[in-house]
């Protein structure tokens, strides 16, 4: 029951919001609900909550199961942190029909939590889509000029991917002994190598699109750019993690042979993606696009590390899942503050943030360091472990991927340079002090960045069981 | 060649030629008349097969009622030869080729079917074409479809009224 409340709170709050029109109440409900979720998430971290297990579709032998393990806890925590952060940081933003906007975001949250918590393949698919559809509406209604086409592309891509996954699920379902969707049952379905290969491809397509991995990434920069920033935050902080979550939760245990067999290919693609995204990020003028491409690069690295099948790589990825979310969230919030106040995303028009708003500039620099994965920041530990694994897997790959660190440094610092330093741009003149709440949120996030950077052990502890499961064979 | 065979081939040739004339005739009225001849030929076949009831019903229903309606409608519309819409030549060619290949395919299929090899059709004899056994079977074994077909007629009637009313 306890786990179910995690899903119910956002859903109930979302439905409530549909009937509320007063700005203050809207904010109160939204933030209250998300904070409630956060508190429960923190409780779960320490208490092992009992599984929620109910009959759902008796004919299909599908059960509604919510189950926590380290991976789930970690990502639930990330989600639970992200949403209040987003809501608080953006609560002053002017949005038409804010109640619906927030309501849809809360639905997304429920979907995401469901994805991370469920232990039933069919329910997993359900939540996967549930997380997507509100985003489609959010982006299409409140997005930028080209929102309709771009969001549609995004939607089609991800939906198509998920449909492939659905076939995979159906296929697996058919090969379980008693036709069940439960993960345990799926794990017991021993597929032959060829079967594994094909089903692996179906699943991986869905995850690869979500992450996204080169060459399936084309939807991402456009979508990030055109979406309203709150949504972009959700997308890049949490949603992309769905892909990696899927790889860890489904691909590795279910298709070990295929997983190993495809490692070279996937890692190559990932590395190409890393380099490619980094180079493009360097050339970007648009702040949001820059962050987007940087995100592609980071996710690519995580994916590559996962496919090395090395324990340290996996450990790194597990940490980085959380860290990257926090970092990127911070960057987005700052980018949003700037955009909200200056009305531009072009870095050319910026500059001199440090002079106008030193606090904000400091925060920006902090998150930028985390993005480059400087030591002491949270990302350092993860990236270090991941490179280690890559190095063990293939030196050349590691070397190539290593280039990305340098590139990341180039574009991130370039961004900091353009935004924070130099002459105060015309538009920058309009810059006011961001709201108290936003500043607090950023500070807390930055605090998390450094705390986990210095003391990553707590993340290791949470994910230890997952890691053990992955490599117990 | 026995009389029956001569009759069979004569009627078949007659039917086929008339059927082709239905297609070829430009004037719709001529088509109708040729079609009536086809029906007569088919009725002749029925007689040959000793399906008397069907032979006569065929004439009453098809030649007597249906074709009169056709003729009636064509005359009512006064469709003239020169007003007759024509399809393009290639469409016609494609149609002929399609029909021809359909025929060839099925004929080839039938030729290779071993199941019916040497099976003979009983001509002239047999009581099943007579009205008495037919009536018995129709009202015993086939009474349900018979009754249900009344729904068909009702709907056709309602429909004709709906469509026919101004």
């Amino acid at each position, binding site marked *: 029951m306890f786990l179910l409340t995690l899903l119910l709170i956002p859903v109930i709050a979302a439905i409530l919001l549909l009937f509320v029109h007063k700005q203050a109440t809207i904010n109160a409900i939204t933030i209250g609900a998300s904070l409630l979720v956060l508190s429960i998430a923190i409780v779960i971290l320490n208490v092992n909550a009992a599984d929620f297990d109910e009959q759902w579709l008796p004919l299909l032998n599908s059960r509604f199961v919510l189950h926590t393990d380290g991976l789930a806890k970690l990502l639930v925590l990330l989600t639970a942190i992200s949403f209040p952060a987003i809501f608080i940081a953006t609560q002053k933003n002017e949005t038409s029909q804010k109640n619906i906007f927030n309501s849809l975001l809360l639905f997304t949250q429920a979907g995401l939590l469901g994805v991370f918590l469920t232990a039933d393949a069919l329910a997993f698919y359900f939540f996967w889509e549930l997380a997507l559809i509100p985003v489609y509406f959010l982006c299409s209604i409140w997005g930028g000029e080209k929102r309709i086409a771009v969001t549609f592309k995004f939607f089609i891509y991800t939906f198509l991917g998920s449909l492939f996954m659905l076939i995979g699920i159906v296929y697996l379902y058919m090969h379980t002994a008693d036709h069940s969707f439960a993960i345990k049952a799926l794990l017991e379905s021993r597929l032959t190598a060829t079967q594994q290969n094909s089903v692996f491809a179906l699943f991986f397509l869905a995850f690869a699109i979500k992450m996204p991995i080169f060459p399936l990434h084309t939807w991402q920069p456009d979508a990030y750019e055109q979406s309203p920033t709150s949504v972009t935050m959700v997308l890049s902080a949490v949603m992309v993690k769905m892909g990696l979550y899927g790889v860890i939760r489904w691909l590795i245990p279910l298709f070990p042979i295929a997983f190993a067999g495809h490692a070279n290919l996937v890692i190559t693609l990932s590395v190409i993606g890393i380099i490619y995204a980094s180079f493009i990020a360097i050339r970007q003028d648009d702040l949001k696009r820059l962050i987007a491409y940087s995100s592609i690069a980071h996710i690519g690295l995580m994916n590559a590390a996962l496919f090395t099948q090395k324990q340290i790589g996996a450990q790194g990825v597990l940490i980085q899942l959380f860290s990257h979310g926090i970092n990127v969230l911070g960057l987005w919030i700052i980018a949003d503050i700037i955009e909200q106040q200056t009305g531009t995303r072009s870095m050319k028009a910026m500059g001199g943030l440090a002079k106008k708003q030193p606090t904000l500039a400091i925060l920006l620099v902090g998150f930028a360091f985390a993005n480059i994965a400087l030591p002491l920041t949270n990302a350092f530990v993860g990236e270090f472990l991941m490179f280690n694994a890559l190095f063990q897997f293939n030196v050349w790959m590691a070397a190539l991927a290593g280039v990305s660190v340098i590139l990341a440094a180039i574009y991130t610092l370039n961004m900091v340079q353009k935004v924070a330093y130099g002459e105060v741009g015309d538009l920058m003149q309009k810059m006011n002090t961001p709201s108290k709440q936003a500043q607090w949120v950023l500070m807390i996030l930055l605090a998390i960045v450094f705390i986990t950077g210095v003391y990553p052990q707590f993340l290791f502890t949470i994910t230890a069981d997952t890691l053990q499961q992955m490599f117990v064979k | 060649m026995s009389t029956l065979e001569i009759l069979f081939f004569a009627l078949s040739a007659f039917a086929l030629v008339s059927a082709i004339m239905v297609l070829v005739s430009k004037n*719709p009225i001529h088509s109708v008349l040729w079609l009536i001849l086809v029906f007569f030929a088919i009725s002749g076949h029925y007689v040959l097969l000793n399906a008397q009831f069907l032979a006569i019903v065929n004439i009453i229903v098809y030649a007597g009622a249906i074709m009169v309606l056709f003729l009636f409608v064509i005359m009512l519309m006064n469709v003239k030869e020169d007003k007759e819409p024509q399809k393009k030549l290639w469409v016609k060619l494609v149609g002929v080729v399609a029909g021809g290949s359909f025929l060839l395919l099925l004929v080839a299929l039938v030729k290779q079917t071993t199941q019916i090899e040497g099976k003979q059709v009983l001509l002239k004899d047999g009581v099943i074409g007579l009205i008495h*056994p037919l009536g018995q079977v129709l009202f015993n074994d086939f009474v349900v479809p018979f009754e249900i*077909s009344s729904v068909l007629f009702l709907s056709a009637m309602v429909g004709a009224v709906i469509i026919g009313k101004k």
Partner: protein
Amino acid sequence: MPIQYYIFLCLGLFSIGMVGVLTRRNAIIVFMCIELMLNAVNLLLVAFSKMYHAIGLQTQAGSLAGIDAQIFVFFIMVVAAAEVSVGLAIIVMMYRNVHSVDINFLNRLKN
């Protein structure tokens, strides 16, 4: 008479009807060709019926084998009559409005 002869004859008639449906544009003629097809089917059914009757008679005198096909033919005729009434009503309705029985009348207008 071998059953094949009947099958070939009926297939011939059926195909002629089909060609008519495909090549003619006058709705009435197309409809007539459909009737021709139905008739070909009827004849074939009767031929089959008599084939099975012959087989039935070999095993049992006075057998009524094959009679169901003739009843089927009867139903086909009857249904065809109902269909014709509706069909001609539709054709007349169309004629009233467009003064044509061309099945592609509207397409012709579009071109």
